[in-house]
């Protein structure tokens, strides 16, 4: 079984899959914020990307910066095969947890 990934790690990895070749820091931050529907800090995303790279779930490459970035480089991320396997495992685990239950759950008042 692949390494277990946390909820926020999943959100960032899914953002990398959705963004494809456009997955750089700012785009990832905006995508995660939109998906989670809350403000997310750059520190949290940067720390998570660092962790995903350390676990070999994502890899990155540098690209030249633009004027609006003050010439600072962009770092593009892509999920690795191990990262995609970990995402699949996480999705399977969630699906298995819910199997047999009618959704949404009825709330008795």
């Amino acid at each position, binding site marked *: 079984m692949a390494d277990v990934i946390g909820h926020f790690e999943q959100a960032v990895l899914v953002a990398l899959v959705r963004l494809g070749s456009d997955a*750089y820091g*700012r785009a990832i*931050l905006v995508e995660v914020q939109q998906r989670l529907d809350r403000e997310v*800090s750059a*520190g949290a995303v*940067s720390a998570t990307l660092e962790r995903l790279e350390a676990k070999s779930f994502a890899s990155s490459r*540098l690209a030249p*910066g633009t004027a*609006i970035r003050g010439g*600072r480089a962009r770092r593009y991320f892509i999920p690795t095969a191990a990262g995609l396997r970990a995402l699949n495992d996480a999705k399977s685990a969630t699906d298995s947890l819910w199997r047999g239950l009618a959704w949404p759950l009825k709330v008795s008042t």
Partner: protein
Amino acid sequence: MIDEQANPPRLAQLILGVTLRPIDADTVAGDLLEEYRAVRRPSLGRLKADAWYWGHALSVVAHLVWPFALALVAARIALAMFFAFPLSGGWNPSLVPAPNVSLLDALFFVGAGYFGARRTGRVATGIVSAMALGLIDFTAFAVVATLLFPRLPAAMWGNPFILVIGCIFLALALAFASALGAAGAVVGGWTARGSAR
């Protein structure tokens, strides 16, 4: 309208540059600058956009020190609950009769300095980490002091002398944190360079 010359607060940029790993310093700062210039500054105005940038810069520092901050605040609360207040004295000697300068605080500051510098290989990261921890430590002390002596905040405003004493305590705590953090950071930076070789 996008203003390509608009710049976030310099101190926030400096803190960001110091606390990020060298490999991230350029790219993460660039991401935030791009968002600041393209979206936040035009839509929020200077004051709110600057606050937004500060929030993100401080979030990077928070990710650096949160394990130490959590442990230190927990230790402070536990000690306040089970032992006498103030927290120094006896087994936990203090440099001078003031809060946040005890042996226990020193251990945390050295640790924050060491791990901060190890992360980036820069002594400055360790010092910033230790100072941020010192500020959190002082805030925790102030909260505990206010809970134990509820009339303290009102007394501060009523008697400026108490406010001055509080400011001196804060300055002492930050100086102590930065000195101990620097000591830990020198060792951390040295070991980081050693393991990189």
